[in-house]
């Protein structure tokens, strides 16, 4: 293949991996590059046929306390880092934001963990199954007060949210439908060992829901909702905005809604269709989404091959606006530009600082910027800047940025230009700070390289996926 085509093809694969997963290490990328785009696409969109036993072995060697709210977050981050089925984890994250349940109210990390497993089980399958499983999920029942939904005093919370946020979206039902739907879900309760149908509390009477009448119970409601045209449309729009574009054309949404219908509500088919679409491979799609904190954090950990999920990561992700298992409300995370209010931008910048600071130098395999530069045999400022721009932002930056970065890297501590032999850039990290303004000459290079990588990771385009 001519070089240009190969480069474009490789870029497509990296784009695909970023969208279908959480970034990649060089070793993780290599087999996909070798496969070529269509095989990579097939591999990624059939997670159930990828062997994930390596992850299971790794998990077995860790110890998590699933009744501890911090540990369940670390567990999930570990999965996202080391899974061989990136799309499976990404879909789980999508559904977690969709069927948004917060441990803040549920107060049961174990139940949140079980909900996460339930989601993963159905993430790529038939939507009806997922919706039914969620309607019976103990954490969800607790979260939307269905425990209190009783025959003579119905509680409308679940019925409302299931229509407004989980299936059809606002404007496709009436208040009366909410009331009738609530009646159908009466008696759907949770016990410590799982779902419990309290038939004594169930309203067995006739209900009229979305134009249909019958002695409906929850299963019937799930069935009716999953078969609504509005549901296919709503889900299609959400999936496209999560994986492809913020403002898709109506025809694209219609197309994927069509797949929902044709495939008998199969989520995997919809997602595959999105990735296979020309809308996805077009240049307009490249770098068009803003990385969620999850993608930002995991992507960075993979780039620098940090082999340890450290204790602070869940808290820092929460500070960036994505607290796993604790979405801000039942609407989940709005995403998009909501990820970049000013103080969360600062959190992102400071997370990048943390990543390249000497904090992780003790970790084997951790690739500090200086180490990367040495491994790549970079010997000039321009080469270094070019390499890191290519690695981190796929060269998506105006020429002025490149020039300014070169100027930064090749200046000494007072800002004056410095000659850059770049020999032996790896030096021993300092153990305690020196007086400000002074840095020994052999440390200047290390500081510059770390600073360079930090500056690139604060670029607007590094926030893009």
């Amino acid at each position, binding site marked *: 293949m001519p070089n240009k085509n190969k480069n474009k093809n490789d870029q497509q694969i990296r784009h695909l991996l970023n969208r279908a997963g959480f970034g990649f290490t060089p070793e993780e990328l290599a087999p996909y590059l070798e496969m070529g785009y269509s095989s990579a696409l097939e591999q990624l969109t059939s997670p159930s046929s990828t062997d994930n036993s390596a992850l299971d072995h790794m998990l077995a060697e860790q110890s998590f306390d699933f009744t501890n709210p911090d540990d369940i977050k670390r567990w999930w981050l570990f999965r996202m880092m080391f899974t061989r089925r990136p799309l499976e984890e990404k879909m789980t994250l999508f559904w977690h934001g969709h069927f948004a349940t917060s441990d803040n109210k549920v107060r049961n990390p174990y139940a949140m963990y079980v909900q996460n497993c339930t989601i993963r089980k159905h993430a790529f399958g038939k939507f009806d199954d997922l919706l039914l499983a969620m309607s019976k999920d103990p954490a969800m029942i607790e979260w939307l*007060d269905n425990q209190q939904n009783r025959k003579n005093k119905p509680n409308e919370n679940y019925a409302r949210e299931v229509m407004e946020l989980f299936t059809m979206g606002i404007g496709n039902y009436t208040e009366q439908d909410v009331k009738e739907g609530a009646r159908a879900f009466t008696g759907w309760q949770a016990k410590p060992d799982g779902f419990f149908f309290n038939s004594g509390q169930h309203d067995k009477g006739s209900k009229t829901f979305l134009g249909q009448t019958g002695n409906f119970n929850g299963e019937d409601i799930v069935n009716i909702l999953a078969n609504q045209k509005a549901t296919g449309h709503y889900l299609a729009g959400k999936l496209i905005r999560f994986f492809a574009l913020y403002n898709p054309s109506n025809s694209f949404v219609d197309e994927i809604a069509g797949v929902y219908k044709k495939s008998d509500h199969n989520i995997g088919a919809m997602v595959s269709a999105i990735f296979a679409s020309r809308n996805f491979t077009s240049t307009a799609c490249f770098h068009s989404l803003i990385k969620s904190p999850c993608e930002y954090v995991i992507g960075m950990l993979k780039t620098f091959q940090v082999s340890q999920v450290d204790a602070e990561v869940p808290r820092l992700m929460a*500070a960036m606006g994505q607290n796993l298992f604790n979405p801000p409300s039942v609407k989940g995370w709005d995403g998009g530009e909501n990820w970049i*209010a000013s103080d969360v931008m600062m959190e992102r910048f400071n997370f990048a600082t943390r990543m390249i600071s000497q904090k992780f130098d003790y970790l084997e395999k951790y690739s500090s910027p200086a180490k990367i530069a040495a491994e790549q045999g970079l010997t000039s400022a321009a080469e270094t800047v070019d390499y890191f721009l290519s690695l981190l932002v796929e060269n998506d930056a105006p020429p002025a940025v490149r020039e300014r970065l070169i100027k*930064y890297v090749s200046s000494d501590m007072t800002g004056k230009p410095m000659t850059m032999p770049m020999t032996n850039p790896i030096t021993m990290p300092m153990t*305690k700070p020196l007086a400000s303004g002074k840095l020994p000459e052999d*440390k200047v290079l290390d500081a510059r390289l770390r*600073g360079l990588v930090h500056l690139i990771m604060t670029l607007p385009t590094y926030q893009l996926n």
Partner: protein
Amino acid sequence: MTNPSSIYNSINKSISRRDFLAGLAALGILGQQQLEAFASQIDPLAGAERSILVIQLNGGNDGINTIIPYGNGAYYDARPKIAIKQADVLHIDDKVGFHPSLTAFQEFYKQGKLAVIQGVGYPEPNRSHFRSIEIWQTAQPEIIGDTGWLGRYLDHLSISQSPGKVVKASIEPDKEKIAMLAVNVDPLLPKSLLARKVAVPSVSDVQAFRFKVDPLYQADRALQLEAFNDIYQNFDDNRPVVKKLRTSGLAANRASERLLDLVKGHKTTVKYPDGKLGSSLKFIAQMVSGGIGAKVYTLGYDGFDTHAGELRTQTNLLAGLGKSLSAFQEDLKQHGCDDKVMVLVFSEFGRRVAENGGGGTDHGTAGPCLVLGGGVKGGLYGQYPSLTELDHGDLKFNVDFRTVYATILDRWLGADSREVLGKNFDNLDFC
């Protein structure tokens, strides 16, 4: 900060209203005295040091259990389990009173600093949290707006005054203006602050909000910061999403340096209650007394979606609200600023009159607004909605929330509410 021509512009805006009023006076509809009184309330310079703090109670606070119609038997009929006993209610008059947790508010009310506006809502109420919050924040019930009411206010402000710092323009100069006109003290920017021209920083933890470099290479910070600013200011890229990222990044940096300086210098003897609300209000007090000159502060307080277990939850939350605002007012008073901040407390909707099966209530419609602080004429405003003549089991509103906004905009901030809200709304008399 204000230059003569901008003052003239603001006066011009109010003159047009004055002309209108003068016309009315000429027709004998308004007396000269009334005209003068009205005109003085729209003196643009009066807005110079004033600011507004908007606290959003997230989840839909149960207004009926906040401002309690204890004199009405229907209240006890509808809520056999969760009604507050008459003896516990903190009386305002012989019909309504405060929830027992709100002792601080009763105190403010006695001092004449608290206005209770009853029955606030809007036509065709929406019982979805998100749509209703959006309506309150955009002040646009009929369409899905893309700017907030406070954002539009800030946009107008930034046109008529030159902002403190102007970023070097690259492509579209107007879109790059950044100023500390407002601060959002919450992790996520509420839609009320979405503006076309102004980027509002969101700062929930001022210590974390600082551009950091490798701690062992502090010497490098100045140069990195310089490079960062150069790159961001000259980032030549037309994509809308990139532009937003630029604006946000620059705003973050500017704001952080300024805020850190401010916080260092603040001293107070007031003890705020533990928790996010207390620490956020403390931070706002620091900014107000430190003189950053922001006109708008926003804050959210979570947990009011009481579908079940309402009594305990609401008791705790309202106690927190009362104590925190009490500390806040005291802190401002110590620094001579308590008459400069007006606090507006609202929720996206009230809750149903009847209780549900779980010791709670479901989403409703109208609810009370509370306005506290500087320039407030304390008292009860609006009507308490009827508990028996309902709209599908919910209260009917009698005060459009936009009149509350209009009052604050016109009379407190010296802005033109018609420009901000899109049409004329009456003013209430609480300020």
